[in-house]
């Protein structure tokens, strides 16, 4: 029971000579790369005359069609709606709802067909016009199949009305049937036939209908036997047709476009109350008689036959072979699963098959720059494999714009896909760092909750500040909020910036306390302490005393801590000596400033208020 029984499809790659060379390849998320090569390295490589090509191969061409996009979008809406149908609804109301869903799908197909038809007609002489034409034909076939499935599997038309539905079906898809019935009706006694054509609604039972028909049928036969129409061979032939005589019907084969038209006509005249379970007998014989051994059944014929035989699995399998896009089989199978038909037909892998087909279809969508969002919903409704499939696909979506990245992240966050969020943010943060966009890098690190990377980016910020004397992306740093807690370095960055703000607003006492606390709380990296102490200088040099005595002692302690820790290297070079000189000078200036401040603060604290 495989749906790949057909021959594998062949795709021709230009510029490659498979007789002499081979191909190397690689998979991408939605495409494949292929290039001509030669694997037998033992041969001396001949210098290639021309320039070799790399070819990009795609699987799902339909995803790229503008008109089909509407089909995909609208059917997506119907699909999602179907998944949400109340489970409690049973019996008639549920069936009615499922039929409605099926009709919705079909109307979407028809709308697409009509739009394509416009294009086909407008452009009829060009290759594109022909392409559109063939698309229309295929969609038409798809709708034909779906309609039949709706009648047989979803509507589950019982005997009696079944023929009515089949008549509608044929009428809808084969226009000629109208002319045939006109012909038949035209030259016969209308009264006898109108009573037949006025098929009863719900008021008569099946038995009553059968009786009436039987009576009428016998009357026709009697007329034929009695030779009532003997004088007119045309009328006689018509009478035979009305009696459901196969030979007579086949004589007018040119009026019947195909075997299922023939089938329905036969049933109309010989078995109007045909039961669903008997349908396949007539279907098979109709096909055989119509083809008459001259041609063999085509894929469409096989699909319809499988439907008449109520072999759902065969229908799905044949459709999978005949159609290269999974759209049709995926949606139809899903609908049939909702009708609880896959189980009832003993397809124990039923739910597996549904997921398999839906995920095949969704895979194709992920390759597209905007349809990927539809793919997400299909994955959502596959309880077994949907999530892991989504995880694999969503990381691969190229994040070409910030907007797209945010959309993708929202999808992940809504589904608690934390690893994917982390990974995507990391990719974006890394890209930002390499392009020196530190603010962007920082915000992505925060979103990824990546402490290590946040530390790295904060370090870069601080390094930038040391080199240029100012901060970039002030807005971001000023508004970090609780995110500041992500990493120590980030907290330091935030607080340090706050120090500068306070200083700018002349809140010197607050600024001073903050500065000190950055060192004493060990949040500031050691390497930065000199900068911080140097930042303290203007505060020490102010007219009023800002640092208290206690604070000054602390500062002194920090300075000693810093200077005592310096190791003596071996042979200092000229540059190092010069640096050391600068350092020594700085330290001396600081010591002086701190000593002076200490003196002033002691005096201030020792004095009475106001003096």
């Amino acid at each position, binding site marked *: 029971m495989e749906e790949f029984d057909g021959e594998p499809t062949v795709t021709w790659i230009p510029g*490659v000579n498979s007789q002499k060379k081979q191909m190397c390849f690689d998979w991408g998320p939605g495409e494949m790369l292929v290039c001509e090569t*030669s694997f037998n390295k033992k041969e001396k490589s001949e210098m290639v005359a021309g320039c070799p090509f790399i070819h990009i191969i795609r699987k799902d061409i339909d995803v790229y069609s503008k008109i089909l996009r509407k089909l995909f979008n609208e059917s997506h809406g119907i699909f999602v709606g179907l998944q949400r149908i109340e489970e409690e609804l049973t019996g008639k109301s549920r069936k009615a709802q499922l039929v409605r869903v099926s009709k919705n799908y079909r109307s979407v197909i028809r709308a697409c067909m009509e739009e394509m038809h416009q294009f086909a007609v407008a452009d009829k002489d060009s290759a594109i016009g022909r392409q559109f034409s063939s698309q229309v034909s295929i969609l038409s076939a798809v709708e034909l199949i779906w309609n039949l499935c709706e009648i047989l599997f979803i509507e589950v038309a019982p005997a009696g009305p079944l023929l009515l539905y089949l008549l509608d079906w044929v009428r809808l898809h084969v226009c000629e049937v109208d002319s045939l019935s006109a012909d038949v009706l035209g030259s016969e006694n209308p009264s006898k036939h109108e009573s037949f054509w006025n098929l009863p609604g719900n008021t008569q039972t099946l038995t009553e209908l059968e009786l009436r028909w039987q009576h009428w049928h016998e009357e026709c036969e009697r007329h034929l036997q009695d030779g009532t129409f003997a004088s007119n061979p045309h009328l006689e032939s018509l009478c035979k047709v009305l009696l459901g005589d196969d030979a007579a019907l086949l004589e007018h084969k040119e009026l019947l476009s195909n075997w299922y038209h023939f089938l329905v006509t036969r049933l109309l005249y010989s078995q109007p109350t045909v039961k669903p379970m008997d349908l396949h007998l007539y279907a098979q014989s109709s096909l055989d008689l119509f083809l008459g051994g001259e041609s063999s059944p085509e894929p469409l*014929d096989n699909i319809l036959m499988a439907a008449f035989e109520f072999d759902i699995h065969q229908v799905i399998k044949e459709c999978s072979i005949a159609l290269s896009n999974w759209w049709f089989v995926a949606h139809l199978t899903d609908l049939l699963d909702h009708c609880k038909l896959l189980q009832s037909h003993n397809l124990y892998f039923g739910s597996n098959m549904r997921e398999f087909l839906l995920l095949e279809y969704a895979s194709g969508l992920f390759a597209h720059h905007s349809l990927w969002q539809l793919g997400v919903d299909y994955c959502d409704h596959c309880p077994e494999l949907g999530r892991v499939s989504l995880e694999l696909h969503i990381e691969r979506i190229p994040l070409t714009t910030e907007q797209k990245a945010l959309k993708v992240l929202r999808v992940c966050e809504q589904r608690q896909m934390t690893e994917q969020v982390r990974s995507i943010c990391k990719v974006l943060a890394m890209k930002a760092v390499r392009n020196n966009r530190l603010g962007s890098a920082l915000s992505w690190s925060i979103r990824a909750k990546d402490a290590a990377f946040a530390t790295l980016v904060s370090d870069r910020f601080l390094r930038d500040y040391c080199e240029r004397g100012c901060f970039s992306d002030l807005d971001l740093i000023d508004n970090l909020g609780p995110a500041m807690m992500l990493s120590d370095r980030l907290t330091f960055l935030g607080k340090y910036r706050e120090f500068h703000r306070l200083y700018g607003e002349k809140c010197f006492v607050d600024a001073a306390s903050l500065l000190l606390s950055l060192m004493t709380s060990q949040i500031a990296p050691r390497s930065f302490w000199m900068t911080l102490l140097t930042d303290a200088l203007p505060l020490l040099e102010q007219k009023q005393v800002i640092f208290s005595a206690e604070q000054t002692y602390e500062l002194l302690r920090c300075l000693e801590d810093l200077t005592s820790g310096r190791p003596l290297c071996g042979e200092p070079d000229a540059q190092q000596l010069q640096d050391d000189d600068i350092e020594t000078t700085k330290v001396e200036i600081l010591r002086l400033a701190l000593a002076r401040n200490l003196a002033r603060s002691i005096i201030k604290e020792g004095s009475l208020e106001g003096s």
Partner: protein
Amino acid sequence: MFVARSIAADHKDLIHDVSFDFHGRRMATCSSDQSVKVRAEPGSKRDLARPATHSGSVWRVTWAHPEFGQVLASCSFDRTAAVWEEIVGESNDKLRGQSHWVKRTTLVDSRTSVTDVKFAPKHMGLMLATCSADGIVRIYEAPDVMNLSQWSLQHEISCKLSCSCISWNPSSSRAHAPMIAVGSDDSSPNAMAKVQIFEYNENTRKYAKAETLLTVTDPVHDIAFAPNLGRSFHILAIATKDVRIFTLKPVRKELTSSGGPTKFEIHIVAQFDNHNSQVWRVSWNITGTVLASSGDDGCVRLWKANYMDNWKCTGILKGNGSPVNGSSQQGNSNPSVGSNIPSLQNSLNGSSAGR
């Protein structure tokens, strides 16, 4: 399938490998002209980046995960593997916005041609493995992802046979220890272990041999673990005189046992000789649902399992030497919703059946 576009590869000699980056936006190619080139969308600024070079034919090229930035690794006949990083031009540079590739490190431990190079799954950090004709698999790590010039050799695994290919198990599940499969194309008759699987042991902190696939006795040209869709077992594809697909089910360890590598139940689930010749490459698509193989018959074949787990060939790519038509659509460009078999539409129009 259809050919969406064809791009001139701009190499002066035979191309040995092509590689798509993680998002499928950029392509790397390597060649006997000793260079590695990176292409993006034609016409975009990042196209035609200045090439990176070795001093011998470059056999393989591979991309690191974008979490580590834009990083490539290549391996060559010149007995080295190299790691490349893309540098974006400074904004005050006349090369503003343009990128070029800088060789960050050269790994020179091998005494023979390096035949394959592969990055480890990202959850292991920035790590890569190389294998050489000298029969040694070397695993390197860059402890600081911001400094790609520092790589340390963490493990040397002796395979005793000339190695041709390696594959990391991509599974990031905690239940699976890091695993690497190595293939050998050694053609001497005594060489038995053509496919070996090594597993990392947390206790000994070393890689130990877990399995040898004894049923594979012909030279192996390529090997590939499939991406794991939440399975408890592993799937491994092998390119040898035919295409083979194995499943490896970890045998449940007794709770008391410690130390030793995992034992596996090995089953062959598919064997295809459709190529009718040596198979040179195998590779899985990103969901692990389709395997592609390339053979001496000049074809690339696609293998897929249906929902019943039966494997079949679902597509063939081959060339008939027809000229390349620049960058226009080629091949089976029959857009349809869609039929491979035109008769589907014919039978609807009633043009064949019954007329």
